């Protein structure tokens, strides 16, 4: 790939990130502040709400006694300096909360997306190569089920059968209770445990990611299976594939070198969307599995009208989306050299 083209592309993306973040903060701020409700009441609770001094101290501390434009201006100014403000609920810097929650979600998302890609692409190819046969029908039903099942329901059912009944997976949380987390370097327990050489913690952490990861992967794997199947079927009927077949190339070579390569281009496009699906799913899955990630943090912040936390989550998710889409675009050009970054 042309390095200069990549740098130009990166530069344009970075500029657009600034505008996007500004837009995201503005929209989130307007929506959140328009929700009727008083954060002081939500956080301090009904017992303390008659304590005028407590309410006043709360409003002063978080600038809620200022007009909305002033509050927003102050937020943007602090954000430009990398300061996300202080969570009204936890009374800690939002950046610190995010630094704890974000890796937890990323760890889960990586497992979920990996499982979804491996299963989705494999099943999709298998279904297409055995079109209208039993395996195709079974996989179509399974993928449809994956797409259709509500993720919170699936989470409860999966936990009940696979963890509670069969004991194949451990319980909730990121680690078995009582096990001390590894020293934080990346915040990904598996990586941090490996770096610290704590292999018992590593295996425990990895085991805890599997079931919520599988649940999160189910919807995306279903989408990917269906998408891959369609893409492969489209490619299979092309002349160059028939030619390769006529030349007597083995089926494995035809699939991996000729079909999958071409079929992967639209599939990669879907990865960006899958990332979105996984992030949305974490709100519910993290709740069921007591997973202290962004989804759980966002949910709790939202119902308590914790504005700095909500804004922090929105900004991080926006940046994440932009980054993922950037990676998808670059992958695009790697998989198909005819595509140029422009």
């Amino acid at each position, binding site marked *: 790939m042309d390095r200069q083209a990549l740098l130009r592309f990166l530069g344009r993306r970075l500029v657009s990130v600034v505008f996007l973040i500004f837009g995201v903060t503005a929209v989130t701020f307007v929506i959140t502040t328009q929700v009727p*409700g008083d954060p002081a009441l939500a956080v301090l609770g009904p*017992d*303390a709400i008659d*304590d005028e001094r407590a309410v006043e101290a709360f409003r002063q501390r978080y600038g809620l006694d200022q007009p909305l434009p002033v509050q927003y201006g102050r937020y943007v100014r602090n954000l430009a300096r990398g300061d996300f403000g202080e969570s009204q609920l936890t009374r800690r810097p939002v950046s610190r909360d995010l630094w704890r929650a974000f890796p937890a979600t990323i760890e889960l998302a990586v497992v979920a997306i990996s499982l979804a890609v491996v299963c989705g692409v494999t099943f999709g190819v298998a279904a297409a190569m055995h079109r209208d046969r039993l395996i195709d029908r079974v996989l179509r039903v399974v993928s449809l089920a994956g797409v259709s099942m509500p993720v919170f329901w699936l989470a409860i059912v999966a936990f009940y059968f696979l963890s509670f009944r069969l004991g194949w997976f451990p319980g909730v*949380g990121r680690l078995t209770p009582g*096990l001390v987390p590894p020293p934080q370097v990346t915040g990904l327990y598996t990586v941090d445990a490996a770096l610290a050489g704590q292999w018992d913690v590593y295996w425990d952490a990895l085991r805890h990611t599997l079931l919520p990861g599988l649940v999160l992967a189910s919807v995306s794997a279903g989408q990917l299976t269906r998408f891959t199947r369609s893409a492969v079927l489209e490619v299979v009927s092309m002349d160059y594939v028939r030619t390769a077949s006529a030349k007597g190339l083995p089926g494995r070579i035809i699939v*991996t070198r000729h079909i999958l390569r071409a079929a992967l281009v639209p599939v990669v496009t879907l990865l960006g969307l899958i990332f979105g699906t996984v992030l949305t799913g974490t709100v519910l899955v993290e709740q069921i599995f007591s997973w202290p990630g962004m989804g759980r943090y966002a949910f709790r912040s939202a119902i308590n009208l914790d504005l700095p936390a909500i804004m922090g989550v929105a900004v991080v998710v926006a940046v994440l989306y932009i980054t993922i889409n950037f990676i998808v675009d670059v992958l695009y050009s790697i998989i198909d050299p005819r595509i140029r970054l422009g």
Partner: protein
Amino acid sequence: MKPLNRRGLLWLALLMTLILAAAACGTDPDEPVAEPDPADPDPDVADDLPFDTLIVDQASINRSADVHNETSVEGRMQFRLTYQTLLKFEADDITEPVPWLAESMEVNDDNTEFTFTLRQDAVFSDGSPVTAEDVVFSLNRLKHLAGPAAWLMEGVTPEEIDSSTVVLRTDEPMPELPMLIPNPALGIANAAVLREHGASADEDAAETDEAGAFFESDSAGSGPYVITRWEDDQEMILERNENYWADDAPPFQRIVFRATDPATQRLAIQTGETHIAIDVVPDDVAGIDPSGLEILLEPGFILWYLQSTASTDVHPIAGQPDFWEGVRYAIDYEGILEIGGEDAVQVCGLMPFQVMGALPDEDCVERDLDRARAAFERAGATGDHEPIEMEYGTDLALDGLSVVPVAERLQANLAEAGVNVTLRPALMATALDRWRDGQSDMGLWSVSMRHPDPSSYLVLAPGGASGLRANWEADMAPHIADLAEQARTETDPDRREELFQEWQRAMLEESPIFPLMQIARAIIHDERLTGIQAHGLYRIDMYAVDFR
């Protein structure tokens, strides 16, 4: 550009699959894993103990690890294992506080001076003695942080007399103060340690105190445990305090409090992953396999009530006493109890039956549809009128029960008596906002026990905090407000009880507040444990927990 290396990609995929498969295989029970398994005996535990790490699941844990900045019900159970108070309640008695860090308490005749003499043998986790300076610092810090628990010290000024004597002076007579003292938010912390970490007890502590981070992985109390880890909305880990001064410590080396969804708790308690599950929904209890478990199901301490506005400006019909009478007799109290579960009970007065002064069953209001219809007729509630809205929080679940079906049942009850009420669900943060501003026509709310004394429920009186939410001013029912004040300041216990009962009976006749029920709450625990029972203030008194 070089084409993609297919082989590399395949190897990567294979490697990832192998890692995942290996991890899945790691679930093999024979696989040696170093972490303590709560279901199995711990190799490090003394031979006569089944396990040394106790795991307790709740729907949520304390929002802050700072004892002076937290007053949630969830936090009380944990904090009192680390920070002790001058007085405490025993596990089975919430009617009378007993000495704890204080060995005695003296009260002056007009209940404005409370003198505490500290015991000499109590020490903090670093071995230093608990002194009057620590007490004054802790109580002032609670007061001046202006956090959610600051109201506990409203109108109270602590003063050090000597190193082992503290006086709490109140602005006005406060006979209920001894009932407030056992609240774990009034826990006594080591002043020197907290100061070292940026804590302040000065009047500007709300702006200057910087000790928040300290509390997340440390503590400075005199209880049998120290906090080693607190993760918001995740877990709090306590380790045994080797310098503990008394001999009433629970037998566990470590206690882990986890925030766990109620549905998950139900499963976790059955697998043995957790030892105590506190928030399993009562309706789900029937489906639990009881082997190896003990299930306690008894009415909780939260009082559910319906409230109408007392202002005809807010609603011209709902603000009338005739309308209130109609509502009072239109409610099918037994039907409401069906939703609350088998062990739910009707609240006959305005406080849970476990509290001194609660009214007996004979005082319970019974449904009388004819009387309700007649009252509604007088109020003009049966014809065409501005819609009457009933508000409630959709995200509110009290003792595990959602308020939504209760609101729907109440709507149906009122319709049977000829009044159409529109439901207005909202997020709690929104619903509470309108409630605080007195904008609700009607609302379905609850009141928790602030302290285990009948005065805790005087917020419902005319002119009280909750009464004012209904726009029910003291001068709208002066005789009831007067009864409330008499009951609050009376010092003779028998007369006090009588006055609280008189006050409640008057409220049942005339107020726009309609008590409904206390629902059952479930505590499920490992049968190897004993001493577990619901506590009105602490949820569970963990000091009483032991092996059977």
